[in-house]
């Protein structure tokens, strides 16, 4: 039988204990502490990046909501810019106010980067100027974005008024 457990030398025990404590301390100081430090700094970086990501995410959510609201608010305007302009439809619209409508393309020019601007000369006949006012008012509800512009030429000839004026059509499709 090993009697070493029965007769433990106190000096030997203290030395063994000291060595044990030293080894443990060494392991903690040189292995665990640096790892924990690295862990804590990684966790700090992770938390910062997470907060940043969450704030960007909420900003995107706000922006998307803003875009959606703008799209809903300006549905008609957006659709009008996207609508392809056809002379046939415009003549049909103008025909409800004027007689003998004709359109001549004056020029096509760029306008503020994205939009293409057409200038068309409209020649028409009308019985009273009030029809012209109605036409201008109705233009704001037309399927395209159309601006009536100068020069406006009106000449009365017996019972009818001959008129000619310029319209500017803003077409987004023309640029694509």
């Amino acid at each position, binding site marked *: 039988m*090993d009697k*070493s*457990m029965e007769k*433990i030398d106190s000096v*030997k*025990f203290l030395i*063994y204990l000291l060595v*044990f404590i030293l*080894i*443990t301390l060494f*392991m*903690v100081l040189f292995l*665990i502490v640096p*790892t924990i430090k*690295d*862990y804590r700094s*990684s*966790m700090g*970086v*992770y938390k910062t*990046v*997470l907060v*940043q*990501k969450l704030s*960007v*995410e909420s900003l*995107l959510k706000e*922006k*998307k909501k*803003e*875009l959606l609201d*703008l*799209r809903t608010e*300006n549905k008609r*305007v*957006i659709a*009008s*810019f996207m609508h392809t302009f056809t002379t046939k439809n415009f003549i049909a619209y103008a025909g409800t106010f004027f007689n003998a409508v004709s359109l001549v393309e004056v020029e096509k020019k760029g306008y*503020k980067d*994205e*939009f293409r601007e057409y200038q068309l000369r409209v020649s028409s006949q009308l019985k009273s*100027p009030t029809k*012209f*006012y109605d036409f*201008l*008012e109705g233009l*704001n509800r037309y399927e395209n*974005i*159309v601006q*009536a*512009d*100068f*020069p*406006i*030429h*009106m*000449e*009365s000839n017996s019972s009818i008024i001959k008129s000619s004026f310029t319209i*500017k059509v*803003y077409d987004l499709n023309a640029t694509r």
Partner: protein
Amino acid sequence: MKRDGKVSMRLSFIAPRKKHFFSMFTKIWLIFIALVIVLLSIFNVFVLFKTLEYKSSVVNLESQRKSLASTIEETDKKIRFIVRQKAIAEEIYANNIILKDSMKNLFDLVPDQITLNKVLMKKYSLIIYGVTPTKDTFNSLLAAPLKSIFHTSKTVFYLTQDGWYNFVSTNKIISPDKLEEQ
């Protein structure tokens, strides 16, 4: 104790003890040390694993943030475009209404005694051709309001065969650019 000239070994009363390379105490001590090393190493590996997990999450989050930021930029672009479309549309609609009002104002200005034959409206000028019974009628009823609207207003009269006057009234506004220059 010599027998037959040989040295005989005396037998021990106790059985010989088995000598161990390490004593029991040392063994327990070594086991403790090994246990501490193993436990601390396991703990260390666990912490290292968690650290790596955080590090890979950071890379992942960074790439997600970048893609979100680029989506924000695209959304901003779309918002700016709609705002521009809205502004342009509002400007055009306002211009149409202004044009309508100015046309209406012009025709409302003309009294019943005067007949207009031709109207030429440009951005900064208005030329009116018409017939008036007398020069005074024109000057008091139409020339006065025209002068208050335009910067320059000139009228030329031609006597007709039936005693009325044909007139050509040329009215001009100095464009805002030229006004600034002055």
